[in-house]
């Protein structure tokens, strides 16, 4: 099972990269035509609205939006009620009212929708877009300005980002590279997360399994508790490194195959390995301590919850940290030892301006916290693994730590 999952993940990573690449080029498949009822209270936009919808439908034969103009009626309330009823029985998909004063900018486009699915949001914004275009076109006409001229005036100047290499060669950066620039740091962080957190899970299950099956007593007759704990951490760290290099190579391979140009320096890899080893020992020691005082996985999970929440923090805020690798938020997280490895590899791969003192300080903090946490964990571990039954309270655990 383990080997299977290890081998499958690279394919998964490759697959995700491959498909996300393909997907970004995809325009989406055909969908049934949508019927939109539009009531134009300015009474002057009709021609423009019809034109923009015709243009749109002509260029999107598979995603038609059918326009239905609602002529002004004396009783607006009754008209609105009638359209809303049609909306509910689904004979139209949207009912739109353009306020009388949309042209001078104070009115609104009001869209009435019924039971809209997330997948339909795209055509809704398309309708908004089209109506806006109609309004702008009419404004142009009122100001005696050709819409084409306006578009021409407003046209962006194309820009090109040129990366200059070490030996002077120049390379134009593609749009996809900017995305990759964001994704590489994320991938490094995610790999670190998987390596530390995913492998750490094995620690907890193995401790609890050995505790439950009482293998632990046989093991302890041959090994000291510290040897046992250290052996587990080292073994899992080695497996973790192997698995991560497999996954990393697979991801790198797929990216290169898909034509992305990724540069990963030896320096980065070294940092990764150093941070991984320290981070893993730290995290695994915590887990060994937790695992040893629990009798079931369920108990362990409830104790794990705060730890898990902490690890989620960098995962949900990675975009911010990639864009601001030297921001105060990223910096603070760098110095919380269990998070240091994840945050630091993210920052190091996102920016080249991470100060050396920060790297040194974060490493120093890790290096100092590892023996401290290991010491505490070993104290809890050596007593906890032989205790069955009720989970000890904090006071009892402190007594274990103090015990000779």
């Amino acid at each position, binding site marked *: 099972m383990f080997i299977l999952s290890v081998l499958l993940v690279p394919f998964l990573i490759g697959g995700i990269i491959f498909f996300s690449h393909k997907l970004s080029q995809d325009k989406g498949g055909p969908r049934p035509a949508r019927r939109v009822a539009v009531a134009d209270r300015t009474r002057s936009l009709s021609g423009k609205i019809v034109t923009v919808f015709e243009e749109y439908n002509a260029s999107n034969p598979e995603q038609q939006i059918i326009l239905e103009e609602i002529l002004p009626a004396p009783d607006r309330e009754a008209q609105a009620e009638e359209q809303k009823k049609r909306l509910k029985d689904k004979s139209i998909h949207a009912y739109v009212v353009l306020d009388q004063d949309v042209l001078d900018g104070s009115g609104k486009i009001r869209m009435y929708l019924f039971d809209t699915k997330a997948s339909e949001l795209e055509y809704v914004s398309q309708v908004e877009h089209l109506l806006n275009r109609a309004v702008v076109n009419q404004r142009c006409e009122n100001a005696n300005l050709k819409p084409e001229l306006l578009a021409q005036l407003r046209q962006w100047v194309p820009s090109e980002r040129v990366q200059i290499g070490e030996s002077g060669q120049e390379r134009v950066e593609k749009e996809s590279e900017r995305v990759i620039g964001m994704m590489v740091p994320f991938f490094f962080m995610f790999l670190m997360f998987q390596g530390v957190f995913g492998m750490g899970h094995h620690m907890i299950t193995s401790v609890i399994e050995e505790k439950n*099956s009482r293998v632990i007593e*046989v093991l302890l007759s041959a090994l000291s508790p510290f040897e046992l704990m250290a052996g587990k951490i080292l073994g899992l760290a080695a497996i973790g490194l192997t698995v991560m290099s497999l996954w990393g190579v697979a991801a790198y391979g797929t990216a290169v195959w898909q034509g992305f140009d990724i540069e990963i320096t030896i320096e980065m890899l070294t940092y990764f390995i150093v941070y991984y080893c320290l981070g893993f020992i730290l995290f695994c020691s915590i887990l060994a301590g937790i695992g040893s005082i629990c009798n079931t996985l369920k108990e362990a999970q409830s104790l794990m919850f705060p730890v898990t929440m902490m690890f989620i923090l960098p995962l949900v805020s990675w975009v911010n940290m990639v864009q601001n690798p030297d921001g105060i938020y990223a910096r603070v997280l760098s110095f919380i030892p269990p998070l240091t490895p994840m945050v630091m590899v993210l920052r190091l791969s996102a920016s080249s301006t991470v100060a050396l003192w920060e790297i040194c300080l974060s490493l120093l903090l890790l290096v100092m916290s590892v023996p401290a946490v290991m010491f505490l964990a070993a104290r809890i571990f050596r007593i906890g693994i032989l205790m069955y039954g009720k989970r000890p309270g904090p006071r009892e655990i402190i007594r274990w730590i103090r015990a000779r």
Partner: protein
Amino acid sequence: MDAIVLDNVTKSFGPVRAVDSLSVRVPTGCIYGFLGPNGAGKTTAIRMIMNIIQPDSGRIVVLQNGPLEENRQRIGYMPEERGLYRKMTAGKVLSYFGSIKGISPRECDRHARQWLERVELIDHIDKKVEELSRGMHQKLQFAVTAINEPDLLILDEPFSGLDPVNLDLLKDIIQDMRARGKTIIFSTHVMHEAERLCDYILLINKGRSVLDGTLEDIRSRKKSHAVVARLAGDTEFLKSHPLVEAVAMQEKNLEITLIPRASPQELLKDLVGRVEVQRFEVKQPSLHELFIQLVKEQNAQ
């Protein structure tokens, strides 16, 4: 030379004194039985010998206090709660524990096969532990304990759950190990197992040593007050005999209980004059009877 010395060892769990001023010497090369009812403190004593838990007070010397690391490899311990990796095969489990216990990796598989043959599990070498029956599991656990030929074997309730055939198999192996100079300690609450196997016996009740010594010692310490006899002729007179407390008929034999301080010899002399004595045997108190008697006496105090 003593393999294990416990000197005035005490261990409490909260208000309960699990082991109370216990002193024992286990000579090298013998089989020592720790007997006692459930909850007497046998397992606690064994766990302290194994250094799994520490005594509150007292001194424990195991294998002349050799270096801890070295000692660990010289001791085989079979805990009361059996446990092995359920998903591993029998052969792999043995090799794995062999390697932990200091057998070189190349030798592990060979040792594992040898031991599986010895406990008659060689046909199940590729079966997962969880597929084994309870008795097989037990034998495998024993093989795990003994795989590296330790000098000292500590077995907590080694015979529970074994059928008579496997019981004898295990006893043979244990006796064979004693013959090769190993020391074996085991705990049990089933007396006749101990009676057939032990050189020495320690009887514990409520954490205290009740009896300690060789089997012979223990038996002779307690004077017997019962006699089994087969007599030809009228035996009615026995019921009113001054030395006799009670008479019971057991098939063709009479079981005669004497009054305290009466000697079986006096009774025999008297009987020979009156009837034909076909059989006369001073009844040895079985360990079982001794055990129950002593535990009752102590609990009554």
